[in-house]
């Protein structure tokens, strides 16, 4: 398991020669939400030439996520080992760790100072992140590190060609690099997924075997689900409680599991989520600046039972206006989350169209 309690020390992973092979054999996918194969990405940056940068993305803009902060506070050296191993593999002399202000940032800063000369030619920098949901998007992190506002790039030059300070850059999530660190140290990493379970008592970080059934995990954790679960964070997908989902990397994305409480209405929670996403927009494109507030307005009305059939049609149309549009994936992913709510809870939507709420009635009964 990754969340080990053994003391965390640097293991001198600068210069693991076959790291990309190890990554390819393990099939490691990114844990920042996009789940891209890590071997191919490192290979591409390596091919772009020496002098690049490895950015450790610990921004964790998902409000319910705690897994990256947990890794930074408990195993910062493991994370740095992975980052340094990746850096030497792609010929990058610099690693920049970007994390939100807090215990995680302090822990990795302390760890970076403790490494002595173990990292060879690689220099580790630690920088505080900009706040906000969108600030965790990889090109937004690079923009922030470069001294600009934390806004994602639109179309244009990819990061692996020209990123931080114009150098070839690869941005990887904290957990991805921790797993890379395990591969560099031991040649293998556990086939698990790291989750942040959002419970009524607060967030709980757990590690489960990949592919575990969602309902089994929730049952074991003693969390009763109401109408369903939001899987993957605020850009995730709603799943009704009568459907079981295998917790693969592709399914969990950013790893947040947000079950509904008994009597909690999925449409009300969706409205809160969209409100947060709309407020988090960096307002650099039309669809996001104008479309997301409108989406919020409509989902609020639906949650409050004030939307009739025409209104729901208007909501679906607005969702359609945001899908596949915008300077980055923020408006698109936000719209897809709303779409998943409409798909997962059709009876609840129908009830709200009549001004009623099934979830509330279930509790009252």
């Amino acid at each position, binding site marked *: 398991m990754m969340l080990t309690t053994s003391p965390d020390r640097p293991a001198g992973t600068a210069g693991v020669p076959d790291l990309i092979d190890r990554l390819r054999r393990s099939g490691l996918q990114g844990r920042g939400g996009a789940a891209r194969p890590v071997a191919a990405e490192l290979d591409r940056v390596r091919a772009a030439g*020496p*002098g690049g*940068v490895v950015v450790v993305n610990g921004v964790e803009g998902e409000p319910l996520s705690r897994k990256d902060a947990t890794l930074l506070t408990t195993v910062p050296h493991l994370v740095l080992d992975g980052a340094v191993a990746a850096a030497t593999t792609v010929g*990058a*002399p*610099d690693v*920049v760790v970007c994390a939100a202000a807090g215990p995680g940032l302090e822990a990795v800063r302390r760890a970076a100072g403790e490494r002595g000369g173990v990292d060879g030619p690689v*220099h580790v*920098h630690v*920088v505080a992140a900009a706040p906000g949901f969108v600030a965790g998007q990889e090109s937004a992190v690079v923009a922030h*590190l*470069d*001294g*600009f*506002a934390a806004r994602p790039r639109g179309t244009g030059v990819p990061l692996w060609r020209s990123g*931080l*300070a*114009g*150098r070839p850059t690869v941005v990887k999530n904290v957990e991805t690099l921790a797993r890379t660190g395990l591969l560099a140290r031991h040649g293998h990493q556990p086939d698990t997924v790291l989750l942040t379970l959002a419970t009524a008592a607060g967030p709980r970080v757990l590690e489960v075997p990949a592919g575990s059934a969602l309902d089994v995990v929730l049952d074991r954790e003693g969390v009763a689900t109401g109408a369903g679960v939001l899987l993957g964070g605020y850009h995730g997908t709603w799943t009704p409680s009568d459907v079981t989902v295998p917790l693969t990397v592709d399914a969990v994305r950013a790893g947040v599991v947000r079950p509904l409480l008994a009597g909690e209405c999925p449409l009300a929670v969706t409205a809160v989520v969209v409100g947060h996403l709309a407020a988090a927009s*960096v*307002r*650099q494109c*039309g669809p996001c*600046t*104008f479309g997301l507030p409108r989406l919020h307005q409509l989902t609020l009305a639906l949650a409050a039972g004030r939307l009739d059939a025409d209104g729901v049609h208007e909501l679906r149309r607005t969702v359609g206006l945001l899908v596949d549009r915008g300077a980055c994936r923020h408006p698109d992913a936000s719209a897809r989350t709303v779409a998943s709510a409409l798909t997962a809870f059709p009876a609840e939507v129908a009830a709200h169209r009549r001004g009623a709420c099934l979830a509330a009635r279930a509790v009252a009964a």
Partner: protein
Amino acid sequence: MAGVSSELLWALSRASGLVLLPLFTLVVVLGVLAHGGRRLGRSPRVVTPLVHRALALAALGFLLLHVGSVVADSFVDVPLLAVVVPFSAGYERFWTGLGTVAVLLLVAVVATSLARVRLGRRVWRAVHALAWPFLAVSLAHALGVGTDTRTPWGLALATACVGAVVAAVVAGRRRDRWRPADPVRRPSVLQESPR
């Protein structure tokens, strides 16, 4: 014969010069409106940038006439070279020279606009901003070298042109600046090249 044709050329250069003043003013006004996404009346949105481009090219034609007639006119000492080398003419060296500066600025603006897609937004915008000094220098040239511009109605025309541009900038700008301003840039965490 030479005297008659010189009279004609002189009249042509003055007339074309006078037309160019409101013409280029209109081009700039349309450019400001196009930048602000403004319609002309109730016409389709594409009309504004379309007419801006068409008029600019028409004005370029008039400019050729203006410059050509001045150069061809043997009465005033403005050799062909003076069209591209500022302050090298014998006639009204300074004011004619300003006209040359205006031509050079315009060539830069038009040439980059014809290749704007290939040049990209940043380069194109930077060079296109030369339209403002172009207009100012053109106006100075017209007032300094033009015998007609210093008449009462000539001054009125010049004032109207300046007024039109100011009005366009004030009223024709983008209606709502919905994008937040860029914060002041901080230094990058890393230098351009690796240590």
